């Protein structure tokens, strides 16, 4: 489903060049559950951004569902993001003036989905996230865990195949974090491809496949036969 071929990404910081990614090759199959770990500056966020089409590689090719993305224009990349990729951020990134329902609805609003179809989809998402009674709360009236659940709701309302989560539990207490991870893993079991970037070793170990990043390259790529998460 996903294939990275010889991806390079360089940032210019002042006079020096920083190789955030160098010659990264990666294949991800549909339905996989991956964690990306590594020290700060190892390039894991850059990898996530490239996978999410938020950033462009300087070299190499990225195939998403068979589509070569390197040469695509902004419009086409935006459409791919909209239809195939969901994002979950550490700091939720909810729009403060919109209530929970409206935040979840936002991607469909931008995509121009008809109101009736929107309502149905959002109702379903609210129902399954157990947020129906919080639908009209502003983000400021919600707890951290609830906010992240709303953010996850927003990321899946367009039914993407790929879910990219950047430190999804970073701002949450242990209990809320566990709930959020359980939700993400449940989505993965239903078929969504899940990639989590994290510092948290315990969270990282739960995935079937662990990518260890070091100096802009994938240092280790290990599969766990019997993931502890499923216990």
């Amino acid at each position, binding site marked *: 489903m996903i294939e990275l071929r010889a991806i390079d990404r360089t940032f210019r910081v002042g006079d020096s060049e920083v190789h955030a990614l160098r010659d990264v090759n990666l294949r991800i199959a549909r339905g996989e559950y991956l964690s990306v770990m590594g020290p700060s500056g190892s390039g894991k966020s850059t990898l996530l951004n490239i996978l999410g089409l938020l*950033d462009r590689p300087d070299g190499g090719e990225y195939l998403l569902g068979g589509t070569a993305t390197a040469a695509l224009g902004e419009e086409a990349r935006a459409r791919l993001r909209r239809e195939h990729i969901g994002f979950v951020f550490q700091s939720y990134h909810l729009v403060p*003036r919109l209530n929970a329902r409206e935040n979840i609805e936002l991607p469909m609003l*931008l995509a*121009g989905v*008809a109101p009736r179809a929107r309502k149905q989809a959002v109702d379903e998402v609210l129902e399954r996230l157990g947020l129906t009674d919080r639908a009209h709360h502003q983000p400021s009236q919600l707890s951290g865990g609830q906010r992240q659940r709303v953010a996850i709701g927003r990321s899946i309302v367009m039914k993407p195949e790929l879910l990219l989560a950047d430190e999804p539990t970073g701002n949450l207490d242990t209990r809320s974090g566990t709930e959020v991870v359980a939700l993400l893993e449940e989505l993965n079991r239903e078929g969504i491809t899940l990639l989590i970037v994290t510092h948290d070793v315990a969270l990282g170990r739960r995935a079937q496949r662990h990518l260890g990043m070091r100096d802009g390259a994938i240092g280790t790529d290990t599969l766990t036969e019997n993931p502890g998460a499923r216990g």
Partner: protein
Amino acid sequence: MRAADLLGFTLLVLRRQRFRSLMLLVSVSIGVAAVLLLVALGEGARGYVMREFEFIGKDIVVMFPGRKSTTGGLPPVTGVAAREITLPDLAVVARTVRGVDAIAPLVIGNAELSFGSRAREAVVIGSNADFFPMRHLDIARGQALPPLDLTVGSPVAVIGATLERELFGTRSAIGAWVRLRDYRFRVVGVLQGRGDSFGMDLSEAIFVPVASAQTLFDTQALFRVLFRVRAGADVEATKRELLARMTALHDGNEDVTVVSPDAMISTFDGILRALTLAIGGIAAISLVVAGILVMNLMLMSVRQRTAEIGLLKALGAPGAQVRTLFLAEAGLVAAAGVLLGTGAGYAGSVLLSLLYPEVPFQVPLWATLAAALFALASALLFAWLPANRAAALEPVLALGRR
């Protein structure tokens, strides 16, 4: 994105940033109202002057001393002042210029008018019987000045209604003797209504025979002369003939000017129209200022909402859509400002009309449309830069900032 959703989303943004939106709204509406009000003032002035001219009548030509156009050379060093127009000149003109069937000379001055112990400063107009029909002035009571030979004075006077009220109270002035400087005049008629003329209130004027006024002010010179062109005669030809005759009388010096209302109307119309456009244009600068305010506040908004812009992009909004969102914001506020400003402009114009009923203030449709278009164009144009900046934001960088 659907238009209704775009509207809803934008309204939410505007409601959220209430102070900012309100400031934009007020600045745009002040600009629009200013344009409309100033244009209304200009149009009112134009209408007022035009009406005054039309009051004179198209068959009247006016002669006054001096040339309206200069030769471009140096002015004469020694006092070669323009010769004055005198009553003997008019006697010749009356005899020789066939296109003219009535002549009303004018001598105008100020003098203290008194009756008994009451006195006040009044405009004294020396003229003749023909003046009244030529200027469409009606006599309320009594009669107009008697038809006399121009050179013959007579101690009779017609006074305006205001003068009568101020000097005589509720009594009638007819038959009373009033005093102008050292001369006494018997009031034979009272003018009807206000009789406005070029801002001069004729209801505060006293009319005496022209020869008497010349004696009163000790002058031979005439201030103006009105000629009525005989029905069927050509106005332009008559003007040329009058000018030629006066030039011959003044030893070959072309030192008088003859104008017809038509020429004056078109000249004044042109001048006042240009003036209206100019003040409208000056007021339009306030719309540019409003546009700059739009730009600054939008730049602020882009900066504050950087993370949101990044999010929208991550959720699949292309740059063009982000730009549309910001332009919609500016456009919506500008449109509301236009509505509010137009309302205020029209209300102000109505208020002016109530305060000064004699001036026909009105907001022309072209000004309304032009102000609306200009306000919208200015807001969108100035919003373009911030909107583009938002559209060009890298989603990664935008998301990173909080």
